[in-house]
């Protein structure tokens, strides 16, 4: 045994390289086992979902309900009105109209062939125009399914719309009379009724033209696509990578710091394999989305632009696991991640949170990921969201490194 001369020691490049290589190996070794577990979980979830779907009755959710509509014979205007109603998207998605006579409707309702019936009266259109409140009879069974409940709500909303329309038309008539308007009142009322109906019927267009979103021109489907991918990656792979942060390896952290492999190197060694795997998976998920739908368009910069998102995601996993290293906190990780997605207005709007918590979603990492990905995918690359993503990642990586450093002094 020979004594070494005193010389400043910092881990040489080779030691660091070997450590990086071993951590990468450890990370990759745990991956097949984890993927297998994930596949089994996926199959179990799929089977459970299918079983639940079969048990709760698929017709409640996936098909429209048959509704009988009774129009007096020869009433062309009422028929046209009913036809227009039947063509509305919101109506078509819930019910399908069957045109029946009154007797047929009664019989179909009692034998369950139809689940609701609307009885329109003769000259309904003229009555509305002339201000006569002719009642419309709608029959809905007491023990209704989900589809029928939705239909009932649709009817209630429709009635409210008509009442508002009526009020507007009557107020116009009153005002015209009051000011002795030269234009015939009936012409004004007809024009206004037409305007109102055209606006009310295409109500989605009004929303489309005034869409305001922090995420730019992202659609609801796009938002939930990236949220689902992020939730899947952060929850499942966050737990999968917990093997890199085992409480029983605290002594190793201690010894590595003596060897000169500090907390920053130990953080980087973990971040590298995690970022690589998350990058591959994120790219794969979005490539599949681009292949099967028009929602995502592959652009030349898309894949390299996903790297910062994968890095930021890896930094979050690193931060939480490093903070809970002593307790091997998989459960804690799961809790924090799920809470982050719930509080981060991914599932419901921030306005539904208590007032004091409303600023919270904008500072959560999930918001940064969603903003960055929505920019990259739909709004065009933004330097601001790129820097925000990178800085958030670096801050989380720094917190993780500090946590690892603090563990050196404990056992």
């Amino acid at each position, binding site marked *: *045994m*020979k*004594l*070494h*001369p*005193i*010389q*400043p*020691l*910092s881990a040489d490049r*080779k*030691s660091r390289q*070997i*450590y990086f290589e*071993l951590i990468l*190996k*450890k990370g990759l*070794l*745990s991956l097949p086992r984890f993927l297998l577990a994930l596949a089994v979980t996926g199959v179990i979830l799929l089977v459970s979902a299918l079983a639940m779907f079969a048990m709760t009755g698929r017709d409640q959710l996936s098909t429209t309900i048959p509704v009988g509509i009774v129009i007096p014979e020869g009433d062309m205007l009422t028929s046209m009105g009913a036809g227009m109603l039947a063509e509305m998207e919101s109506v078509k998605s819930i019910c399908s109209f069957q045109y029946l006579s009154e007797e047929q409707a009664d019989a179909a309702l009692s034998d369950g062939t139809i689940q609701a019936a609307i009885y329109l009266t003769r000259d309904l259109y003229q009555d509305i125009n002339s201000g006569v409140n002719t009642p419309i009879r709608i029959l809905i069974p007491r023990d209704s399914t989900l589809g029928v409940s939705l239909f009932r709500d649709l009817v209630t909303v429709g009635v409210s719309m008509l009442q508002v329309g009526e009020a507007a038309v009557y107020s116009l008539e009153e005002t015209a009379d009051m000011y002795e308007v030269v234009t015939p009142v009936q012409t004004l009322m007809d024009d206004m009724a037409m305007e109102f109906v055209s606006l009310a019927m295409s109500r989605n267009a009004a929303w489309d033209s005034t869409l305001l979103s922090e995420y730019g021109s992202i659609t609801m489907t796009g938002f939930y696509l990236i949220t689902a991918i992020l939730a899947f990656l952060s929850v499942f792979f966050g737990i999968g990578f917990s*093997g890199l942060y*085992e409480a*029983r*390896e*605290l*002594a*190793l952290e*201690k*010894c*590595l*710091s*003596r*060897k*000169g492999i500090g907390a920053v190197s130990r953080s980087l060694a973990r971040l590298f394999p995690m970022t690589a795997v998350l990058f591959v998976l994120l790219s794969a998920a979005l490539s599949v989305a681009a292949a099967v739908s028009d929602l995502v368009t592959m652009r030349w910069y898309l894949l390299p632009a996903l790297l910062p998102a994968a890095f930021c995601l890896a930094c979050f996993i690193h931060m939480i696991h490093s903070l809970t290293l002593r307790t091997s906190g998989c459960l804690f990780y799961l809790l924090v991640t799920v809470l982050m997605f719930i509080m981060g207005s991914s599932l419901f709007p921030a306005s539904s949170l208590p007032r004091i918590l409303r600023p919270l979603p904008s500072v959560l990492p999930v918001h940064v990921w969603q903003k960055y990905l929505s920019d990259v995918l739909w709004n065009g690359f933004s330097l601001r969201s790129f820097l925000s993503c990178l800085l958030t990642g670096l801050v989380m990586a720094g917190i993780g490194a500090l946590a690892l450093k603090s563990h*050196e*002094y404990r*056992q």
Partner: protein
Amino acid sequence: MQSTTTVPGIEVDKITQTYGKKQILKDISFSAQKGSCVGIVGINGGGKSTLLDILAGIRRPRSGSYRIFGQNMFENRSSFGKWIGYLPQGNPLLEDLSVYDNLRLWYGHKVTPELPVLEKLQLLELLPLKVRELSGGMKRRLSIACAVAENQPVLILDEPSSSLDLHQKKIIRDFISDYIGEGGIVLLSTHDMQEIRLCTDLYYLENGSTVRLTADEALLRLQEGVQ
């Protein structure tokens, strides 16, 4: 073992450590020569691991000085690894990887079957096995092999053979004896009777202060502590 100096191998002088208002170590002082073994004994929670952490360069004390072959260790923290091999209470191992991989982390590419420490600690046959497949004793032997990778002249062992069977304890004890025999200095904390008998100097750590004892006195104190 060749020495480059005639000064004492280790000189610990008035080391003090506090956690908040609680004083864990009070003016701990001792020295050790080449080829000696210093035992630190005492009841659990008495500050043994804290003292060994300080001497291994993991923590800084509140005050005191510490020299190895005349070099002030607290002035150059980065030299700890070259001078001192350290085995903490837990095993510093990557559990999912093989014995060979773990040795490679500390020895680099020098891991060959000819490495003397592998034979001394009976690790040769274990090289291809995963660490999580090993028994507690095997893991401890591997941890010791990792600790001495830099061929350091001082070895600090924190309870090297606690809860191991007699056969494993003997292998570790033999290794310590050889290490001392080659001129190395061992600092160890232990509750084991046989290991206590290996020590040339024994210090009982109580209420943060050390008392120098013989092996028999130390054993008696430990038994009293248990009772």
